């Protein structure tokens, strides 16, 4: 089977657009997930009554249902209840639902990993709770969380391909459309794989580099 390079070139503008959509969905979802996770982690760390149970329930629910099913539920089932959400919005909502849960656990674990002696030392020199949080807990918890935080960011970006199922025109949707129209299965899958490598690998490497820099700043090499 021949490899149709001219055809690949003709599809590149469409793929460029699709990469834009993928990044848009992925980056928005990362930011919103992080916001959800910050609120949730605070609730868990401060053991807020009642709310703590709600957050725990949410984390378990979100982590134990597949993204595709959450997506189908929001996109296809909610309209029967009178709630019609666009494909893009459904993608952001479900990815935030999923990402928020994972990141909540990451942040909680980060805070809990700060040695208790640090808190006690802080209190003993007369720091207020707010100062303790800002100057002692957050800088250390943030650094401790970074590796898994970054890993989860990359995970969320990769998960964006799932949202092709509700007609969000990202990279997988575009690939499938072209295969369906022109039957260039090999060419299009090769392009998709290449885009994924070009998109996610440098990001992975960049995040690892940043992580190394931050760790170095904290602990030395």
């Amino acid at each position, binding site marked *: *089977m021949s490899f149709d390079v001219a055809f690949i070139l003709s599809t590149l503008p469409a793929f460029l657009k699709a990469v834009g959509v993928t990044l848009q969905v992925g980056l928005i979802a990362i930011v919103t997930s992080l916001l959800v996770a910050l609120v949730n982690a605070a609730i868990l760390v401060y053991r807020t009554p009642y709310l703590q149970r709600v957050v725990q329930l949410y984390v378990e629910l979100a982590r134990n249902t597949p993204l595709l099913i959450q997506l189908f539920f929001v996109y*296809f089932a909610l*309209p*029967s209840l009178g709630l*019609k959400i666009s*494909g893009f919005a459904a993608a952001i909502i479900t990815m935030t639902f999923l990402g928020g849960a994972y990141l909540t656990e990451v942040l909680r674990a980060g805070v809990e990993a700060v040695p208790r002696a640090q808190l006690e030392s802080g209190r003993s020199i007369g720091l207020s709770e707010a100062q303790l949080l800002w100057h002692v807990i957050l800088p250390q918890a943030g650094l401790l969380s970074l590796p898994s935080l970054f890993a989860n960011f990359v995970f969320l970006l990769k998960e964006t391909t799932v949202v092709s*199922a509700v*007609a969000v025109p990202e990279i997988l*949707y575009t690939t*499938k*459309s072209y*295969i*369906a*129209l*022109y*039957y260039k*299965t090999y060419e299009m899958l090769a392009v998709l794989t290449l885009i994924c490598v070009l998109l996610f690998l440098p990001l992975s490497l960049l995040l690892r580099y940043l992580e190394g820099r931050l760790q170095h700043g904290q602990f030395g090499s």
Partner: protein
Amino acid sequence: MKTAKTSKLLLSLFSLALLAGCNKAEEPNKPASAGASPATSYLETIKARDKLIVGVFTDKPPFGFVDESGRYVGFDTDIGRQFAKSLLGDENKVEFVAVEPASRIPFLQSDKVDLILANMTVTPERKEAVEFTNPNLRVAVQALVPEGSSVKHLDDLSDKTTIVTTGTTADIWLTKNHPDWKLLKFEKNSESLQALANGRGDAYAQDNLILFSWSKQNPGYRVLEEKLGEEAPIAPAVKKGNIELRDWVNAELARLGEQKYLLKLYDQYVRKELSEDTKPESVIVEGGKWQG
């Protein structure tokens, strides 16, 4: 010592892998690459594995769907059983693989199935990619809209959103002839219909037989009169270059035609889905004798 042990282990693993490689050609579940070795007959390969592998739809009644007992049935699916009966002597010696419109041709190209019997319309582009046999059905693409919709003609859709199922004739025709129309594409026929029901688009363009059947069972919708493109044949397909299997299927279709077998399947599955004045010969192609 340790290294010696490891290399011994590696060596035995490697030879195992080699053996496994040798065995691959006889692996019963995978169709051997068609046309790769013209010396061996493809039909013999199927007979050796004692099973015909056929790609079918599972969500497109009456052509391919799942009945109450979980069996794959339908107009197309049952033709697959007849093929298995004729080739292997038992209509149960067939393995059905569920395909979606967009995955039909990739499944043939990658040797996942021997044959696609999934309501595939013959188009010039698809002829380049696969080997079509003679047809078993005829079809045209039309559009389904909600009863109360303001859409009266096809052109009314130019500034609206039209739903299609990825890789269907409707998808291809609209992309080529109306590239400026807004299309919303889903993988499955059932998802597209759900999307129309949810009001995510103004119309659903699809093969008219499927639309007629669906709108008969789900009141509140109407099918636009105008057709998208010409009436076209629907035919089984085999991998590009597999002339032997194509000719065999053609002979089988001719044989089934003499028994009026497709009419029997039409009565069993299709007749009740369409309006009373539909003539069977406007839908089925008995004996493969029509080329569109």
